[in-house]
């Protein structure tokens, strides 16, 4: 791995507030170390902006190890950037080369209004979960954990869907800004487990209803969501969602 410093040109979306007009602004960053993470490169740029008394670029980030789901930027047209199954915070500059021009934009979706620059409001996801993305058990009184055997295959598949980090890349990638993969992941996770069976019907109806009222679009089978998901949630989540939704819609009982 070369340690040679890289020169990068960035075009970053700057927008003061939700209703302010935004624009792409160009910045040159020299001395980029290939071992730097993408966000560390932005940290360096923000330090430079500070020295020039310019407003720093606002972006969401926290754990910087690809699990909290906070980081959220479209890099060269792809949510989280060019590397498969990788959040922006885990993207390293060795994925680029000196002289590259990089476009950085926020998640764009009606349901995710821009707060400032690259920060968006994803609280719609929380409201979707609040409307049914759980097993309604109170604390206390749960039976012994081994009382109910669950096959390894089902448990593993449930995990594959539960791995969703709620970052919203699926919505940003979708031409319709659909949240079907996000909702499907939770429906499929709990649907794979006996614990989730009791509320299966009400869960899918309520979550889909909230998804619609929050302003997310419909799925038209592009598959961009799964392709840009940093946790590689499979498209089957959407099939499960559609199947459960259809079944729940046609059955009278709750």
């Amino acid at each position: 791995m070369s340690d040679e410093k890289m020169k990068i040109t960035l075009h970053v979306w700057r927008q003061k507030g939700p209703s302010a007009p935004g624009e792409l602004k160009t910045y040159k960053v020299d001395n980029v170390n290939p071992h730097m993470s993408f966000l560390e490169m932005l940290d360096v740029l923000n330090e430079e902006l500070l020295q020039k008394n310019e407003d720093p670029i606002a972006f969401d980030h926290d754990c910087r190890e690809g699990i909290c789901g906070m980081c959220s930027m479209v890099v060269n047209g792809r949510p989280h950037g060019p590397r498969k199954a990788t959040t922006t915070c885990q993207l390293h500059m060795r994925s680029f080369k000196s002289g590259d021009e990089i476009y950085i934009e926020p998640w764009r979706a009606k349901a995710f209004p821009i707060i400032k620059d690259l920060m968006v409001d994803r609280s719609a996801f929380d409201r979707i979960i609040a409307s049914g993305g759980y097993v309604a058990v109170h604390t206390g009184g749960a039976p012994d954990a081994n009382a109910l055997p669950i096959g390894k295959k089902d448990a593993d598949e449930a995990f594959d869907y539960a791995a969703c980090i709620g970052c919203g890349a699926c919505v940003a990638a979708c031409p319709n800004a659909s949240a079907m993969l996000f909702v499907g992941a939770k429906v499929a996770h709990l649907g794979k487990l006996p614990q989730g069976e009791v509320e299966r019907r009400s869960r899918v109806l309520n979550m889909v209803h909230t998804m619609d009222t929050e302003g997310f679009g419909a799925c038209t089978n592009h598959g961009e969501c799964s392709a840009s998901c940093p946790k590689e949630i499979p498209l089957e989540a959407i099939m499960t969602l559609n199947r459960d939704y259809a079944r729940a819609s046609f059955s009278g009982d709750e």
Partner: protein
Amino acid sequence: MELNARIPAGPISEKWDKHRFELKLVNPANKRKFKIIVVGSGLAGGSAAATLAELGYDVDCFCFQDSPRRAHSIAAQGGINAAKNYPNDGDSIYRLFYDTVKGGDYRAREANVYRLAQISNNIIDQCVAQGVPFAREYGGMLANRSFGGAQVSRTFYARGQTGQQLLLGAYSALERMIGAGKVKMHPRTEMLDLVLVDGHARGIVTRNLITGAIESWAADAVILATGGYGNVFYLSTNAMGSNVTASYRCYKRGAGFANPCFTQIHPTCIPVSGDYQSKLTLMSESLRNDGRVWVPKKAEDCRKRPREIPEEDRDYYLERKYPAFGNLVPRDVASRAAKEAVDSGRSVLAGSPAVYLDFGNAIRRDGEDAIRDRYGNLFDMYERISGENPYETPMRIYPAVHYTMGGLWVDYNLMSTIPGLHVLGEANFSDHGANRLGASALMQGLADGYFVIPYTIGHYLATAKQPKVSTDHAAFKAAEEAVKGRLKRLLSVGGDKSVDYFHRTLGVDILWEYCGMARNEAGLKKALQLIPELRERFWKEIRVPGSASELNIWLEKAGRVADFLEFAEILCLDALNREESCGGHFREEHQTADGEAKRDDHKFAYGAVWEYKGDNQAPALNKEQLSFEYVKLATRNYA
């Protein structure tokens, strides 16, 4: 400062049951009349907020992230301990209790740890009922693995993402209560002060991180679940936003801060690669189940490719020094051994300290698929960060600050020295003594939130009998003014240095250097001289652009670093005071002939509780003497 731990009388196995019966209850119809503030939405805060709302309390929950699901508990990888004894390998509540007290190097309160071990089993039941997808065997039963500091397999896990799955469980319970209108959630809101009325914690002052609005919130009790202070070291495995401000503000309002020098350095992290580095990434301790730690025997071999170094030229130093536990010795022991290997000139990375963690044997023994099944996501993460493929070449690792055992002092009811202020999870000091065992943080966070505070806070509310207060009270106005004044001061310095410069200097150049893996009197005294100097420079040279009435990332950071700059001094004072080596605190003056930690139970079997005495005044040291009735104090021996 009165330190009454309120440990119930009676045999240890009956204390919690007896105590629960003796605790006063709040009538179900009256619970909704009590407002409880929960600060933090991780495993401890999220589970507490959800459970208290289920019980009927009126809960307001605050977090600085954009969603409660993003709290840093989410990054815990390896697992959660419980005394289920499903593998039939000799585990029991008593053994988990014993291992935890011993692992904590005999600096934790026995009664609290026993309760933790008792509750551990309920946690697993609860999480499974929520739909947490723990790893399972083919027969459908839950799988267990072993972890550092234990000779039984008691760790439940969900691949390498156990913290995420447990947090999403607590988050889903919390969201259910938010949806039901029982919890009001305040994301992107940071607590900047605690408000006391008549000596009781009655509310908080917050800053809305989007609008900059300073707001007051009144309540009948306050719960702090704001995590640890590892980021005082600048580089740590904590999330970027993790900070000490909430705890430190409570300290300044009179809450005792206990054992701040008990900081945990995690042995398996990805090494530092350059000055631009913003954080360090942990690789789960579970990797030590199959990975073997080594460095070359000869310093001149360190630049060779690892596969070219024959077996006989490798020093598997943990297996050599600790044959019984081998690569599974507790974290503090493994970390110091790595430092020792590197200090002997055998780092395996040019320009940065590192040792190998090698899966070659395990892959040959079990096959690559089996290893991928166990650690696939961790290997992928390593590859993404380092650019190297750990299936082919050994990982390079080095210890990094990971967890802080110290925290606000709490009694058996998890209440601090301020009546009404309760502290849960990593933010308190209670269960891990001087060193936390792997897979015990998740256990403690959830124990506190799901199964302890729901009982004990009722007792406080039923007995405190404080009148209702509103945010019109003068104490709220005064606290708001203090917060605003402080923000204004940060904005008005007008220097030319960034917050990160001061944070890095404090953490890397001072604390890691003089108060890191090994500490000595001269170094700590040096740190105690450097910290106030740096603090003075901070208040003269810092540049914080923008205003307080908008989203201002530099201002957020500046406030946190200003508190770190004060808190660091207590950390070093505590380290200087504790003239013994125990757990994560290693004083070079106190070691055995072969370099192992030497505890001094005669002089230091106490919790050191620091009391704020005013700005520029030395804090007062109070002591909670620990008594060990069940666990026999012994030298920890993992050989």
